[in-house]
């Protein structure tokens, strides 16, 4: 009882701590003119989630997503795989080339927009609709497969790879996403095209070494941070690519198949926590004149660090604290769940329900980056024509501009709210479906999900609070 009380109190406290006063405004333009106050959306979202929970408890008595049937709809020729791989390698080369040879002004160079908008934001959107498209275009995987093919044709073959260590699990992917988020949100030279080109080359080199040691597919499935990241999102898609064949399945149907190896929980908490920090770091509470960041930065300057290093240390702390808070809220939900029924420990439950965090992670990405994609994504029209920012006009679109009236501030807000509510409702559905398998009695399954409902409402309020702060 005491444990549950503590869990409930800590859930509320966790959500409170995560609620500042401003947040993310990636390219947000115009002023919102909403018919009701923004905080009422958080209340409405909570009502929607509670109603969804009741509906699931009464209308969903048997697991329906654990074993979904997939229907083959299309076969693709092997040559398409080669073409996609070549396009991926071509894009990779273009980014590196632009980074080194182009203008070092971030907005005039192809590399920053290609990495932070197309790669990091557009691919998750495309993945939700089309399945794991990145697997086909993954440049380092394509290069490794190409080399492997050449070796096999030459008759030499490649050495037998080592077995991928079980203890390593998805930890390399979790650290990789955390490192990317650090570069994007903390590193002071994050927009410097040549620095980005070096980091891209470094990442690709690590992947090639990893694939040569442990095999292309085992490494890609577990340790290539971006492959794992996009593959997680693809599990929500109704389209599933497998062995050059396209299968159709119910939406969310792939998520219960997630193999929750070690590091998976950490990876999803990193995914949600880093996006949350992105929101927090753009708000007044964090960066305002009297905000937390300037105060902390000053303290580090006082002990002898330069202003730049002090800022990076401050933001690193913020990033890690946010990831820790998200992990803590999820952990508390699982601790509460563990108090229902017998024979389940926290680690086991934490892993068995981790797939319910995938739609939340995607909802956070959509909500936080929709405006960035909408506005900055248009910059690709002129950047592809002038990738180096040297005045060239390869495709005749170098004079294109960004239309900031494409979606208004109200439209962005409604998309954000819709994404957050739908994402959390999907998370609730996945958790409910899994609970029906984990717990022998329906009543216990429903009771166990009280805690997941609290987690979902907490994450939704957090997301809306961060976004509303940005819009102020």
């Amino acid at each position, binding site marked *: 009882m005491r444990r549950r009380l503590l869990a409930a109190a800590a859930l*509320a406290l966790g959500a409170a701590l995560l609620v500042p*006063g401003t947040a993310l405004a990636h390219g947000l333009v115009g002023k919102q003119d909403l018919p009701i106050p923004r905080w009422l959306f*958080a209340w409405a979202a909570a009502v929607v989630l509670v109603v969804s929970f009741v509906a699931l408890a009464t209308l969903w008595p048997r697991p329906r997503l654990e074993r979904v049937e997939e229907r083959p709809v299309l076969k693709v020729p092997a040559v398409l795989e080669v073409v996609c791989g070549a396009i991926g390698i071509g894009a990779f080369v273009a980014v590196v080339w632009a980074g080194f040879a182009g203008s070092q002004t971030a907005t005039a160079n192809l590399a920053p927009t290609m990495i932070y908008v197309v790669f990091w934001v557009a691919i998750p959107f495309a993945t939700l609709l089309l399945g794991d498209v990145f697997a086909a275009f993954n440049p380092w995987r394509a290069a490794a497969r190409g080399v492997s093919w050449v070796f096999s044709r030459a008759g030499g073959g490649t050495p037998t790879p080592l077995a991928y260590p079980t203890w390593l699990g998805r930890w390399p992917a979790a650290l990789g996403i955390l490192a990317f988020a650090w570069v994007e949100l903390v590193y002071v030279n994050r927009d410097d095209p040549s620095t980005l080109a070096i980091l891209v080359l470094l990442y690709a080199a690590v992947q090639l070494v990893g694939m040569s040691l442990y095999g292309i597919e085992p490494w890609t499935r577990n340790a290539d941070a971006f492959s794992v990241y996009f593959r997680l999102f693809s599990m929500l898609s109704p389209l599933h690519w497998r062995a050059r064949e396209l299968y159709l399945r119910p939406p969310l149907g792939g998520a219960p198949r997630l193999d929750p190896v070690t590091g998976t929980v950490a990876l999803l908490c990193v995914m949600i926590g880093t996006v949350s920090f992105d929101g927090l770091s753009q708000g007044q509470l964090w960066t305002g004149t009297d*905000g*937390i960041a300037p105060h902390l930065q000053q303290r580090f300057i006082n002990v002898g660090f330069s202003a730049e290093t002090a800022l990076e240390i401050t933001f690193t702390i913020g990033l890690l604290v946010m990831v820790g808070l998200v992990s803590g809220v999820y952990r508390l939900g699982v601790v509460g769940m563990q108090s229902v029924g017998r024979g389940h420990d926290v680690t086991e439950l934490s892993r068995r329900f981790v797939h319910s965090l995938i739609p939340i992670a995607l909802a956070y990405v959509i909500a936080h980056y929709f405006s960035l994609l909408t506005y900055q994504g248009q910059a690709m029209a002129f950047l592809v024509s002038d990738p180096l920012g040297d005045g060239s006009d390869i495709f005749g679109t170098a004079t294109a501009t960004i239309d900031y009236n494409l979606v208004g501030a109200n439209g962005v807000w409604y998309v954000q709210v819709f994404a957050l509510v739908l994402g959390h409702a999907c998370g609730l559905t996945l958790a409910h479906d899994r609970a029906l398998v984990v717990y022998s009695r329906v009543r216990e399954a429903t009771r166990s999900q009280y805690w997941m409902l609290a987690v979902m409402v907490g994450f939704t309020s*957090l997301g809306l609070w961060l976004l509303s702060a940005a819009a102020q």
Partner: protein
Amino acid sequence: MTAPPLAHLGHWYHSLLYLAPVVIVVVVLWVQERRERRRGEADEE
């Protein structure tokens, strides 16, 4: 002299409006869980 880190909370009570539904849901669920647990124990007896 630097300002305390939370000085800029400003309309901090505005943030509580986002926290309120979380607290309400947690309290209601906790009460409901407690009630069901008692009912379950009574059934076992």
